[in-house]
């Protein structure tokens, strides 16, 4: 009951405040009059009676104030009052207010947008039950690098571990699938039967895999994603009639997985792995592995467990060598997916954090400037009895208003910004689909705004209300341009801003410079005017079937050559810089012509002889491939019509392989054995040497590569390359028609090589654009203090020198980052500290020729910007009060 009364009073005080006030007024006046009447009755004159009553009352307004302070919800009233007052103050100075709100909006918006990416990619848990219990398992090789699992190793992990309640291996690849609405290239994942148990999900329709489904020679079964079931299969409730032709074999659809489950990313179909039998090699690293920890088992325990098994395998295996595992490791699946994205994302978050600091420093400066002009108002309020705490609260309230407005605008901007970020983001950034402005992100933005407000408000209030406020009245009330103390604070803020800006500038310079360096690298091939076409035929093992696939591609190439405008056509197993994976690599053997290998086992001993082995990428290609990409022939010859399926098999090697494996020797004429890559044990005779290519991106060194002839070593999945002067769309549709004509069940994916190429630069460009953006929008108000001072004739030479000084400093940085080109941003920022110590002794003459560096360009612009005083704004601030 009292609670109800209280609530009623609270609401009445809040919403009927006028009536409550009238009530109070009447009550106090009635009281006064009654006291006066009493006095008259006691024999006083009416005037004296009233005066005596007033004295006893002690002032009508004081009584009212005392009552008001007792009221429920009084604090809310005074906060609302502060807000109203604050809004009036802010509206009185629309210029600075707008600048502050805009600055905060940009900073908070940028931070929120980046945080949304960081949250979505790194922090948000994977969308599976107890996803923190799901681990990824890797082999660790002799060099300490993590590798995928070989089949027998996985089997040992699965059978011998005591840490996982379920563990499964999986892989993914793109194949041709028909039997649904239309043939398509679809991402499928071969998985072992416990795969769904690891993720704790069950089919919403049909059944999961059983151990029988995975046995060698079992009937072929497939699970489909919800989206695939809806769109490509037409949502049938009865799956008994649903069949798909995957990679040439017919599979029965046995189940549909829940909506939203796509793991690995983009997979639509899951098949039992190894229906044709496992690969017995312990060095064929073909599968990822994931497991769900048993209850009570920690990651450390699981690691020890897996590590012990791995070392046991290492000690007992007959396949010793660099490719055999040395150890095993267990990490959370989330980390294994997002691990590579972590450093750049955190660097970005750090960069926006700095940006936020710069913005806060600017705003603090502006607030101080405003507040120092309000000294007189503060003096009057304090003289009228306002406590210091009350004044501080006023400043806090205003800071809250500003930063909430800024934060609100910023979040609106972030909605737009996130869309932009996602557009810019490199395709290989994992988990992009889970990036959005979600509740935790909004909460972050709100907390950020609150923190900014608290910081700014407390700082301004503490600065302004320290000392004797009433002095403001004594000094005659002319708005002063800051006391000695506040000017010192202003200078500190400017210095901090310059320092932070420097970090950003150097970071951006480094990133930009490394991007430019990378772009300057000669990739070793042509990029423009090339249309690529991914085609995969069903995988076959039978040599005759393989040979017929070679004929199919030969026909296809011949037909493609006839498209008007197409000059050359080639085919390859892996396009350089392709994000899909890259070429397989392995060890080859140097053999002499008369050593005829018979079995795979026979090679075991040969691989022990160090002088016989070499390491290279294995690429299947046609002669046209070298011509289309413009990969130059250094010596010897490339493939030609002599190299038919039944002629001796030949190979072409890359320049770096020739140099490194056969130093001071002519590799042409040597024979090698590389059959472990495709199962064909016939020797390869080296007939030519071609130029290097940067297959793994421009920032990676070229890999040694062995090229073999597609027509001798056929394979099912190839990328056709067409060099053409004609319109891309025209070429694409003609090529699609030809493929349709040859085999209507085979789909193809078309891209231009430029697309593939620029995708590989995505992450670098992403970083540069982001950090560059932050620099570009450096808020311009770091200099109000200087402007204010110069107006008062206090400008000193040292301050005049700031601008050119910074410029020199930046030129020097430009030079410095040339030398460090290619370092990552975080290394760069760390190196900046070292650099700062060394920078004291740079000389003017050092700086002249270095303007060309990207950083230098950025920097001199920033410096000019920074050193120009904004007198007009400063004037307006003064006038505004």
């Amino acid at each position, binding site marked *: 009951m009292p609670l109800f*009364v209280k609530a009623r009073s609270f609401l009445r005080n809040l919403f009927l405040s006028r009536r409550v006030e009238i009530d109070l007024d009447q*009550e106090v006046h009635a*009281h006064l009059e009654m006291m006066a009447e009493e006095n008259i009755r006691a024999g006083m004159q009416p005037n004296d009676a009233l005066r005596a009553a007033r004295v006893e009352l002690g002032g009508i307004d004081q009584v009212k104030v005392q*009552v008001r302070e*007792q009221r429920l919800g009084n604090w809310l009233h005074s906060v609302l009052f502060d807000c109203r007052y604050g809004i009036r103050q802010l509206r009185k100075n629309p210029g600075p207010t707008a600048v502050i709100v805009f600055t905060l909006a940009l900073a908070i918006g940028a931070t929120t947008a980046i945080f949304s990416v960081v949250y979505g990619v790194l922090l948000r848990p994977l969308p599976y039950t107890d996803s923190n219990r799901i681990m990824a398992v890797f082999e660790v090789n002799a060099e300490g690098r993590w590798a995928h699992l070989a089949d027998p190793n996985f089997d040992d992990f699965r059978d011998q571990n005591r840490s996982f309640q379920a563990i499964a291996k999986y892989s993914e690849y793109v194949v041709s699938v028909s039997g649904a609405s239309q043939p398509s290239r679809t991402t499928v994942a071969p998985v072992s039967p416990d795969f769904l148990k690891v993720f704790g999900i069950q089919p919403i329709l049909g059944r999961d895999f059983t151990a029988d489904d995975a046995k060698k020679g079992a009937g072929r079964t497939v699970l489909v994603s919800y989206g695939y079931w809806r769109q490509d299969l037409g949502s049938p409730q009865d799956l008994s009639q649903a069949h798909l032709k995957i990679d040439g074999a017919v599979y029965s659809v046995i189940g549909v997985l829940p909506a939203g489950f796509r793991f690995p990313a983009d997979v639509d179909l899951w098949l039992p792995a190894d229906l044709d039998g496992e690969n017995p090699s312990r060095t064929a690293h073909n599968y990822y592995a994931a497991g769900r920890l048993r209850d009570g088992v920690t990651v450390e325990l699981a690691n020890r467990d897996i590590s012990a098994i791995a070392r046991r395998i290492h000690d007992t295996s007959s396949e010793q060598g660099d490719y055999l595992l040395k150890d095993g490791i267990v990490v959370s699946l989330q980390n294994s997916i997002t691990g590579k994205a972590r450093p750049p994302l955190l660097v970005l978050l750090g960069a926006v954090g700095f940006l936020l600091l710069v913005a806060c420093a600017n705003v603090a400066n502006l607030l101080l400037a405003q507040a120092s002009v309000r000294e007189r108002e503060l003096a009057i309020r304090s003289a009228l009895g306002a406590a210091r705490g009350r004044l501080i609260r006023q400043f806090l309230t205003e800071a809250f208003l500003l930063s909430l407005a800024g934060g609100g605008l910023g979040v609106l901007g972030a909605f737009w910004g996130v869309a932009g970020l996602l557009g810019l983001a490199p395709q290989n950034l994992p988990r992009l689909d889970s990036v959005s402005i979600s509740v935790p992100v909004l909460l972050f933005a709100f907390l950020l705004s609150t923190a900014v407000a608290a910081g700014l408000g407390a700082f301004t209030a503490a600065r302004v209300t320290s000392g004797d406020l009433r002095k403001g009245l004594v000094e005659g009330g002319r708005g002063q341009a800051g006391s000695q103390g506040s000017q010192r604070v202003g200078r500190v803020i400017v210095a901090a801003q310059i320092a932070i800006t420097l970090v950003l500038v150097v970071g951006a310079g480094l990133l930009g410079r490394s991007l430019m360096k990378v772009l300057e690298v000669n990739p070793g091939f042509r990029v423009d005017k090339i249309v690529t076409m991914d085609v995969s035929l069903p995988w076959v093992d039978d040599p005759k079937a393989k040979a017929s696939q070679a004929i199919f591609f030969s026909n296809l190439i011949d037909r493609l050559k006839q498209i008007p405008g197409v000059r050359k056509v080639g085919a390859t197993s892996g396009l350089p810089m392709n994000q899909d994976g890259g070429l397989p690599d392995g060890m080859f053997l140097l053999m002499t012509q008369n050593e005829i290998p018979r079995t795979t086992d026979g090679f075991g001993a040969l691989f022990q002889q160090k002088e016989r082995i070499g390491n290279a990428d294995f690429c299947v290609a046609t002669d046209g491939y070298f011509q289309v990409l413009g990969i130059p022939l250094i010596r010897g010859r490339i493939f030609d019509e002599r190299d038919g399926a039944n002629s001796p098999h030949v190979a072409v090697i890359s320049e770096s392989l020739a140099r490194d494996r056969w130093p001071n020797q002519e590799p042409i004429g040597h024979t090698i054995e590389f059959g472990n890559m495709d199962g064909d044990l016939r020797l390869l005779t080296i007939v030519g040497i071609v130029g290097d290519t940067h297959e793994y991106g421009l920032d990676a060194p070229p890999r040694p590569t062995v090229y073999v002839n597609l027509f001798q070593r056929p394979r099912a999945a190839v990328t056709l390359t067409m060099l053409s002067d004609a319109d891309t769309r025209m070429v694409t549709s003609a090529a699609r028609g030809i493929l349709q004509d040859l085999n209507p069940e085979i789909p193809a994916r078309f891209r231009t090589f430029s697309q593939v190429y620029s995708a590989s630069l995505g992450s670098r460009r992403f970083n540069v654009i982001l950090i560059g953006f932050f620099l570009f929008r450096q808020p311009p108000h770091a200099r109000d203090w200087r402007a204010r001072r110069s107006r008062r004739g206090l400008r000193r030479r040292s301050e005049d020198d700031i601008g050119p000084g910074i410029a020199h400093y930046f030129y020097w940085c430009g030079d410095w980052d040339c030398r460090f080109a290619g370092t990552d941003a975080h290394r760069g920022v760390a190196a900046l500290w070292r650099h700062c110590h060394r920078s004291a002794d740079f000389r003017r003459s050092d700086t002249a020729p270095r303007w060309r560096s990207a950083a230098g360009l950025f920097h001199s612009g920033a410096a000019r910007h920074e050193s120009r005083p904004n007198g007009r704004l400063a004037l307006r601030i003064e006038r505004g009060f």
Partner: protein
Amino acid sequence: MSPEPTSLLQGTLDLLILKSLIAGEMHGLGVSRRIQQITGGTFVVKPGSLFPALHRMEEEGWISSFWGASENNRRAKYYRLSKAGLRQLEAETKRWGRISWAIAQALGVS
């Protein structure tokens, strides 16, 4: 000779207001005079203390108010004790009894 007015102890004002209202509904001045009367002039409650206390107690739900006519037919705001106020008075009275006994014991003036 009436004793010197004493300043009110913390918490006693509420108790005195509740106690004075037990005699019936009354306006602010009435409460003030009543307190003066029942304490033998020891406590004189100034309006600056009285009104905030009355309003606070009304918000607590111990007393309720209404507008009525005074002895001289003047419009005045009257207060009356509510059930919750009565309970509060009982509780406070007990507490006060304990405290005053304890203080008297401590000072040895009983």
